[in-house]
């Protein structure tokens, strides 16, 4: 660890992740070239598809919004050194909260529906994280194991509720009915049109993008500007020291899991209320797991999470364009995404150590 300390802070947060991403893309280029496609063409397609038009931007930001929520969820928990792998299940339950709020209460206006749905999503997500949090705090059951298991329980519960409770009679699609039009969130197109900026009406980007950005600030403020945040970070650095300082480990564990679960649940406001407009089976589609990669890459800092989420949004939308216009198979796009995760997450030290050595050399001169 002594080598790591010699890296200046700016290099730690920019140079290391950037080098990792570049390495991952270089390796992907080799792969694309090996299957007989042009890497240059592929990169151009991905960048143009994701950032070349307001349409591409819209989809990129839509995916990024999901990943900001789930990434923040993992990052907050990790500040207390709790590895919350249950973002998937917590977001599923958040979806249930959104659906119940939107379906069973007749809202006069979308703004009221949005506030209630946000609360519903956060409440359900937090409740789902509370049980593993309690088990960790009071019973010592490891949070990694319990949160993973709760993902499966959430999937089963959602399957049951959708098929037997929410599904309209006679429909063979296991999904809830469509939400009423009053619960329809304004899209980025609608909002930008007010200030006269043209934006594609096709992508499902909606107002929850701003909730996500606000959450980045809120999480930053909570972690670095409040007493609770200090306690969380102290607990994460050293549990015995925190306890000696009068911080209750059980209380912090449960608080952190509640916050983490609520953030994961909020993702449903974007996907369920903003995009699908109904609750479908498997509504989260792995965004809970992508959140882990996003948090790893973003160094568990809200701003880093924001940037990493945009990168993954780009990979999703750019990958979709690749699948549409080339014969590069979908599996290879998953490989590219996996390479980015591998380099930024697992192979972090491979990049960090040479960079640290470079700085050490420069310092010694």
């Amino acid at each position, binding site marked *: 660890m002594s080598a790591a300390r010699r890296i200046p802070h700016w290099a730690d947060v920019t140079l290391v992740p950037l080098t990792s991403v570049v390495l991952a893309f270089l390796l992907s280029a080799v792969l694309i070239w090996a299957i007989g496609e042009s890497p240059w063409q592929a990169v151009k397609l991905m960048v143009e598809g994701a950032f*070349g038009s307001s349409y*591409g931007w819209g989809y990129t930001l839509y995916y990024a919004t999901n990943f900001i929520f789930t990434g923040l969820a993992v990052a907050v928990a990790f500040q207390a050194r709790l590895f919350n792998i249950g973002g998937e299940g917590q977001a599923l339950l958040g979806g249930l909260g959104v659906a119940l709020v939107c379906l069973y209460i007749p809202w006069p206006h979308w703004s009221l529906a949005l506030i209630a749905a946000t609360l519903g999503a956060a409440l359900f997500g937090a409740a789902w994280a509370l049980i593993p949090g309690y088990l960790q705090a009071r019973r010592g059951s490891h949070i990694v194991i319990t949160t993973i298991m709760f993902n499966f329980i959430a999937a089963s519960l959602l399957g049951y509720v959708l098929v037997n409770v929410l599904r309209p009679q*006679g429909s*063979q699609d296991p999904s809830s009915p469509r939400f009423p039009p009053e619960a329809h969130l304004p899209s980025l197109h609608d909002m930008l049109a007010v200030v006269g900026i043209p934006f594609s009406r096709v992508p499902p980007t909606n107002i929850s993008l701003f909730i996500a950005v606000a959450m980045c600030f809120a999480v930053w403020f909570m972690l670095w500007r409040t007493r609770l945040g200090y306690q969380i970070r102290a607990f994460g650095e050293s549990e015995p020291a925190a306890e000696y300082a009068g911080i209750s480990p059980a209380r912090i564990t449960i608080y952190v899991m509640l916050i983490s679960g609520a953030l994961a649940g909020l993702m449903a406001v974007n996907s369920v209320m903003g*995009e699908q407009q109904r609750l479908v089976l498997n509504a989260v589609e792995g965004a809970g797991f992508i959140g882990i990669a996003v948090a790893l890459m973003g160094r568990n800092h809200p701003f880093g999470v924001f940037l990493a989420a945009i990168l993954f949004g780009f990979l999703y939308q750019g990958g*979709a364009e690749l*699948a549409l216009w080339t014969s590069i198979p979908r599996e290879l796009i998953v490989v590219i995404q996996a390479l980015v995760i591998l380099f930024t997450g697992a192979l972090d030290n491979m990049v960090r150590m040479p960079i640290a050595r470079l700085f050490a050399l420069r310092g010694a001169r």
Partner: protein
Amino acid sequence: MTSLKPLLGAASALGLTASLAHAEPALMFDLGGKFDKSFNEAAYNGAERWREETGGSYREIEMQAAAQRVQFARRLAEAGSNPVVVLGFQNAPTLEEVAPDYPDTSFVLIDAVVDLPNVRSVIFAEHEGSYLVGMLAAMANETGTISFVGGMEIPLIAAFACGYAQGARAVNPDIEIIVNYTGDTPAAWNDPVRGGEIARAQISQGSDVVFAAAGGTGLGVLQAAEDAEVFSIGVDSNQNHLHPGSVLTSMLKLVDQAVYDAFTEGPGLETGVVMMDLAADGVGYALDEHNEHLISAEMQDAVEEAKAAIIAGDLIVHDYRTDSTCPAF
């Protein structure tokens, strides 16, 4: 409509799309992917058959996320693909949203109904085909117990189970029918190991005919049945050849035919609801050289009689999806 301009610009600038001037058909797979040994793969096979016979080319797309349903359907229509064949009941809302914006494009939806002038909805009477294989199962049965392995417990698969049970009970009213489902996540459609486990558990409870309606999971079921020397029943495509002598028959659901027909008819195809039932040969049971020695003449006569009665309307197989109940359970 300002939004469409950059879109079209992007599409034409790609160069890769230069050959799109003539309408070529497109196929949009459902989540689960092209090679699921079942529903999606059957559609792929139909498209490939069309390509081989006509020498034409088609565009195909696999999804990664549900948000891509609308996105891809739109892009395909915008790129000039026609007709656009969309797989899976979860895409009904997709076409409700996309199809009205492209009135000159023909869409084909498989497994659900959308009532729009440019959409052909192809639905299958899975309960009728399952009824016939249920009869065969009960006639081949010796232990008094047969079983069913489903993918997820969703109405579509429950309709398979319900038709199967009705057919079996029609032959032997006292027969025991064990029903199990593989899981609650999409992994349930592609988990042959779990499928084999469930099948072995059912066989140990006395089942000697196992019907799998679970996509790739079914391959494990068929294998477990062969290992235990009992019968199995395949699904969707003809799976008789996988384990000759052990696969009693297969419940055919000709998704490939539906795709092939749509591609052949091309742009401007006839829209409306196409019912792929026994009468239309859209569903049925498979009889070929791999299982002809397993199906006796009496068995075949009985099934053919029931088939004729169903087609004539004298015998009505209850469809679970209409009221979420099953008279046979």
